[in-house]
């Protein structure tokens, strides 16, 4: 038999335990929300630092000069000039070259994996191709600078030791797995009934792929291209190492060109004192870069959602 006192004690103990449990139950969601909120704070932090310093930059340099001039000469003592166009040009040229590699190779790789390869071959090939995506970009930079550029110089005599062509090509190789893997996902989700229907009508496999599967998966495929472009725009180390730091406003990819990302690296590693125009220009360029990539990413999501065929 239990004594009356011990029952009372037990009840009290139970109450105590319940109240501490209920405190924990109430505290946990708050703590977890704080953790989740840090990712929102990160975005707010990025946007605010970029906006504030960019505004300070535009107090010293006019927006018109920044977006319409063609000369970027931040270090000139006599007459420094700040225009982002040479950097946008550099970014655009390397990105175009990269996508000229990544889109055809990535898409055909996806077609092979999704439509032609046997299950066994796909299981082996896919992870191997994805290894390419796991290699740090600094390694690609080393590869572009010490191997691809010297090899290309044998073929193209006028090629400078730092140029836009070689990092563009290497960046394209880096993006292949991204395009291939996302496009393959899109193609794999096209139902087999559609393929079988086309085959039954007498189409060859090639015709099935290009007339049925690719059109049906086009939203995912285009989204993968757009994400690839965004990746190429934001890529830093390959272009910093292999494309040099000449702020050229030119279409000539055999010459050194600086991208937006490479400019940021150059300025930050040059110890620009806080408060100088060069220092603020860093944020204006980063802001432009951020807006470009964010737009691309949102566009990709919009395309894959808006134009997705649901079966």
């Amino acid at each position, binding site marked *: 038999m239990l004594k009356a006192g011990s029952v009372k004690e037990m009840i009290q103990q139970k109450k105590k335990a319940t109240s501490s449990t209920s405190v924990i139950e109430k505290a946990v969601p708050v703590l977890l929300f704080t953790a989740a909120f840090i990712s*929102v704070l990160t975005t707010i932090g990025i946007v605010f630092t970029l906006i504030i310093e960019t505004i300070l930059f535009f107090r010293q340099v006019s927006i018109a000069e920044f977006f319409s001039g063609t000369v970027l000469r931040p270090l000139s003592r006599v007459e420094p000039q700040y225009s982002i166009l040479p950097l946008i040009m550099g970014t655009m040229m390397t990105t175009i070259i990269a996508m000229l590699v990544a889109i055809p190779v990535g898409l055909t790789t996806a077609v092979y994996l999704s439509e032609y390869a046997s299950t066994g071959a796909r299981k082996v090939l896919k992870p191997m191709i994805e290894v390419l995506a796991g290699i740090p970009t600094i390694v690609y930079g080393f590869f572009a600078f010490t191997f691809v550029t010297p090899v290309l110089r044998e073929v193209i005599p006028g090629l400078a030791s730092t140029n836009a062509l070689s990092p563009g090509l290497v960046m394209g190789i880096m993006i292949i797995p991204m395009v291939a893997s996302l496009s393959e996902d899109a193609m794999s989700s096209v139902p087999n009934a559609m393929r079988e229907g086309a085959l039954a009508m007498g189409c*060859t496999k090639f015709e099935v792929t290009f007339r049925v599967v690719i059109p049906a998966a086009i939203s995912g495929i285009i989204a993968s291209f757009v994400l690839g472009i965004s990746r190429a725009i934001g890529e830093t180390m390959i272009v910093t190492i292999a494309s040099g730091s000449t702020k050229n406003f030119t279409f000539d990819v055999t010459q050194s060109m600086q991208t937006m990302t490479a400019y940021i690296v150059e300025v930050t590693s040059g110890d620009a004192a806080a408060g100088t125009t060069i220092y603020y220009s860093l944020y204006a360029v980063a802001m432009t870069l951020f807006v470009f990539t964010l737009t691309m990413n949102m566009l990709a999501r919009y395309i894959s959602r808006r134009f997705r065929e649901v079966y």
Partner: protein
Amino acid sequence: MEYIDIDRVKKRMDKRLFINKMVKGIFFASAMFGLVVLAILLYRVIADSIGWISMDFLTGLLSTSAERAGIRGAIIGTLWLMAIVGPVTMILGVGTAIYLEEYAKKGKIHSIIQTNIANLAGVPSIVFGILGLTIFVRLFGLGASVIAGGLTMSLLVLPIVVVAAQEAIRSVPSHLREASYGMGATKWQTIKNVILPASIAGILTGVILALSRAIGETAPLVVIGIPALLIPVPTNVTDNFTALPMQIYYWTLDAVLVAEYANLAAATIVVLLIVLFILNSAAILIRNKFSKRY
């Protein structure tokens, strides 16, 4: 009168079949292209590093003389970086994932946080570097220290952990959850004792993948001003440090001046790739070994 021109049909059929056969070869070649480049890249790096990787190289300190230079500082710096990024992303990432999967109602806040994480995953790493430079290095006055670098990297790889942890938590079947509630467990007790143990394999895989991304990232470190000079080996979180990718970066740039630096860079790349290989194998192992099927 013939309705079908056999010759024309045959000609057209032959053409279609020929294209069909030819493209298969093209597709295969293109799938192989990436692998061939990968093989060349690895071959180049390994060939350049032969003779340069030794115990002295791994344990030696940095030196301007290529023959005596070692990467002990960079290895220890990278380890320090991992020591920050691992716990920070684990706590924040898993916390965020639990909040999104278990607590947040599917409404505005949920979709804001979720969209925000998707957007953060697409922000170029160099922009995170600028955030780190402005907030951690300058505003908080942490300098180019282990803690500043670690926190910057943590924010950068956080989305990887969140997404992996969310998937892991989502894959825990609801009957486990209901059984726990049925036994009288509270929500947090259920999460702590049932859901987290059941999803730990997926969470760890995500953390390891995030770590392997963090140790290869260079751009944010360059931006926050991590040097590759002769600095003392870091002994606590406020010390300056250097890391493997930084070492590769400076040696690659300086290879124009001293040709042997290219070999040192290649040797450091081999070390970095071996570390990445080990980490990724561990992730695959954990996923295969500990992931339960319900």
